[in-house]
């Protein structure tokens, strides 16, 4: 079995090299048969990765402990679901998952490109080079099919912290996002070589959106896992592995905005291609941060060859795509120019700069410790205060842009009509800000986010009303007009729905960071305590054993005022095989707050120590994720064919008659 897997990897490497050579000849000579060979190589490589992954999956399910990887991540008592998830429960398997997903993306994108075959050759080449790099790592540094001479009787089992549904879907989703960045990158190279046509813009935008939504969901699943499993009551710690996923998210978000400027105005072509390259580089860099061990210590990194390979690959990607951009610079010279300072395109440009600046400051904070250790030998840590401090002004700036940009016309905004459009949302925001302050919200950050959030929501409403009015002047009833508007401008209104999702997340994050409360108390059975309007009464503790586990469970009844809300059972689990203790938190979520209960320990006289937290509006974060997914799906569904509805644009004045209504 190990032989089959290793064979698939080596054959994959050979196929990649063969395909790259054929592809390069194909690009140089423009001969069709060489290009077709490289396309076949992509498909053959993908098939080999499916074979390798299938083999590893079979080995996991059949507990083939002769494989080092299988013995490290599974054990005989592991349930089937987590046996499947154990595939990405370790280093080598994660890399194989990377390759598998790249293979699947490759097959799909080649199918999609049937209508633009001029892009075949460069796309296949980029896919094969990336594929070759990962196959190399798999075959020579992190082979999941490495065998042990003496197989152990049982495996070490999956890390208990990974035995959670959110951890089962977090890595594949995140990887669909990370690996998905390869497709826009391949399209960027193809675009620079063959021309940035309208068709190219559509493809680039769509595929970036696909990678983006997976990255978004991957980030949120990871946050959810951190929240329900790690038991510290938070969901985001500015940990390097989290930052690794946030950076490409920020740059791809920037791209999804600036590509519209290119679509409408023919500007920013080079910038957009650069964003596609940077997003891919950051995705690879993210994989490097999490896979090379560089974050735990520079020295651990220097000892492992995989990190060096990653840096070489990153250097090659940056150098070759930079060279390509400069060599084809003339391609970007055809665009128009910026007509006015106050316009939709300059708002998008500013939004891009803010997003890229955010990615840059996160990058700085993440790599600073590595660089400082390499130069001074001091090990330092750049903590969350840095990230919070630098991100706060950027987020506020983004919210201002998010609210104003939809109300600004392309080319040159008319001050009067902008003033009219912006006055209502601005008034709402100011009144809301005063209202929240009167209600006792004192944190300036929270006030700013709440008020600006309503400003953005108000701007979306104004924008929607504006469209409805135009349609109504064409004689549509209001309800039909709203429906038609949404159906015929899916990308735009899908985008606004995504904005609302982002607002929900920002509100949840801001409020839960500013107003979370927590206490740690020790209670005797029968004693009670209260926090944030909840009263908790500790009843009793029980202890029992399951194979390999020692479980301590407590029963706590929760009430608010006279109203009982039910029982919570926070537990403490000791995993004998891994010599590791985990907390099974108890959580009671409502729209307003989460009661988050952690059992710290139970003493022999049955006194139990709890950590109790009340975290406001955390549910909004997860709900916001759902809203973002909905908005993205609306935007991704191909637009309706019928084009009999006039396009609603800000630069079209509302006829005088419509205003009277």
């Amino acid at each position, binding site marked *: 079995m190990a032989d089959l897997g290793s064979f698939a990897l080596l054959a994959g490497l050979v196929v990649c090299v063969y395909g790259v050579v054929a592809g390069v000849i194909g690009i140089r000579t423009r001969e069709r048969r060489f290009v077709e060979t490289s396309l076949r190589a992509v498909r053959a490589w993908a098939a080999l990765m499916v074979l390798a992954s299938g083999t590893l999956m079979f080995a996991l399910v059949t507990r083939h402990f002769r494989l080092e990887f299988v013995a490290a991540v599974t054990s005989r008592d592991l349930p089937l679901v987590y046996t499947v998830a154990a595939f990405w429960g370790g280093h080598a398997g994660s890399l194989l998952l990377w390759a598998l997903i790249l293979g699947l993306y490759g097959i799909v994108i080649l199918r999609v490109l049937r209508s633009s075959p001029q892009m075949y050759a460069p796309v296949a080449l980029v896919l094969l080079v990336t594929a070759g790099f990962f196959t190399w790592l798999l075959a020579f540094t992190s082979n999941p099919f490495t065998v042990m001479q003496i197989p152990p009787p049982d495996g070490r089992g999956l890390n208990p912290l990974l035995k959670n549904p959110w951890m089962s879907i977090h890595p594949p989703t995140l990887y669909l996002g990370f690996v998905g960045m390869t497709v826009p990158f391949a399209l960027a190279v193809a675009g620079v070589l063959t021309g940035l046509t309208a068709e190219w813009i559509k493809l680039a935008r769509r595929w970036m959106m696909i990678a983006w939504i997976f990255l978004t969901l991957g980030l949120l699943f*990871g946050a959810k896992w951190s929240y329900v499993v790690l038991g510290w009551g938070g969901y985001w710690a500015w940990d390097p592995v989290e930052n690794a996923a946030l950076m490409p998210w920020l740059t791809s978000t920037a791209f999804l905005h600036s590509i519209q400027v290119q679509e409408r105005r023919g500007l920013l072509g080079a910038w957009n291609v650069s964003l596609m390259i940077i997003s891919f580089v950051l995705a690879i860099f993210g994989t490097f941060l999490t896979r090379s061990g560089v974050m735990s210590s520079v020295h651990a990194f220097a000892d492992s060859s995989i990190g060096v390979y990653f840096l070489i690959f990153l250097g090659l990607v940056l150098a070759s795509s930079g060279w390509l951009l400069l060599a084809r610079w003339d391609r970007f010279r055809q665009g128009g120019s910026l007509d006015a300072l106050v316009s939709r395109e300059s708002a998008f440009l500013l939004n891009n700069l803010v997003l890229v*600046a955010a990615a840059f400051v996160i990058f700085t*904070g993440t790599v600073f410790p590595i660089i400082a250790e390499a130069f001074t030998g001091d090990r330092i840590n750049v903590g969350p*205060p840095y990230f919070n*401090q*630098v991100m706060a002004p950027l987020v506020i700036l983004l919210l201002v842009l998010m609210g104003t940009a939809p109300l600004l016309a392309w080319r040159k905004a008319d001050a009067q009509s902008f003033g009219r459009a912006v006055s209502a949302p601005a008034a709402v925001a100011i009144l809301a800000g005063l209202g929240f302050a009167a209600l006792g919200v004192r944190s300036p950050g929270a006030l700013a986010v709440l008020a600006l959030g309503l400003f953005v929501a108000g701007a979306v409403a104004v924008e929607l009303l504006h469209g409805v009015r135009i349609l109504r002047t064409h004689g549509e009833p209001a309800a039909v007009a709203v429906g038609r508007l949404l159906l015929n401008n899916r990308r735009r209104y899908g985008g606004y729905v995504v904005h609302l999702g982002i607002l929900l997340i920002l509100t949840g994050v801001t409020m839960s960071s500013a107003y979370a409360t927590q206490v740690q108390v020790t209670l005797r059975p029968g004693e009670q305590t209260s926090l944030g309007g909840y009263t908790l009464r500790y009843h009793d503790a029980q202890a029992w054993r399951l194979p390999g586990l020692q479980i301590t469970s407590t029963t706590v009844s929760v009430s608010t005022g006279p109203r009982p809300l039910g029982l919570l059972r926070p537990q403490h689990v000791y995993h004998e095989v891994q010599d590791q203790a985990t907390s099974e938190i108890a959580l009671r979520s409502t729209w307003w707050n989460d009661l988050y209960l952690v059992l710290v320990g139970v003493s022999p006289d049955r006194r139990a120590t709890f950590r109790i937290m009340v975290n406001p509006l955390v549910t909004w974060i997860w709900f916001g994720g759902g809203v973002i997914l909905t908005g993205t799906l609306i935007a991704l569904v191909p637009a309706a064919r019928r084009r009999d509805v006039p396009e609603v644009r800000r630069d079209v004045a509302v006829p005088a008659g419509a205003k009277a209504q």
Partner: protein
Amino acid sequence: MSPARRLAIGITVLAIAMGIIAYNGIRSATVYYLTPTEFTRRPDIQTARVRLAGTVSPGSVRRANGHVAGFMIGDETTSIAVRYDGPLPDLFAEGREVLVEGRLDSDGVMNATQVITTHPTGYKEKTRP
């Protein structure tokens, strides 16, 4: 002045402001990360914010009202007293490896603002993809 140039000036101003915020942020949020022995050998950072990595010395945990109020963090040769009454992580126990973040007080006791247990298996390398 053309719109593009005015925009460029605005962007430069923004970038500089951002740079200053980031620089101050890094300076104030940087925490040295060392063992108690390394810390005592560094007179230059005695008043800086540090993160000490060591084990909770057996028998050193001091309690008040059922809560932990302080303990000693040590390595093979040195140990440093820690004052702390905040929430403790799950795995906190005597003999466990912990990270203590804080600043040395004038009485030579570390005023900790945060205590983190380092996981025996180092979950971060293992679990995050």
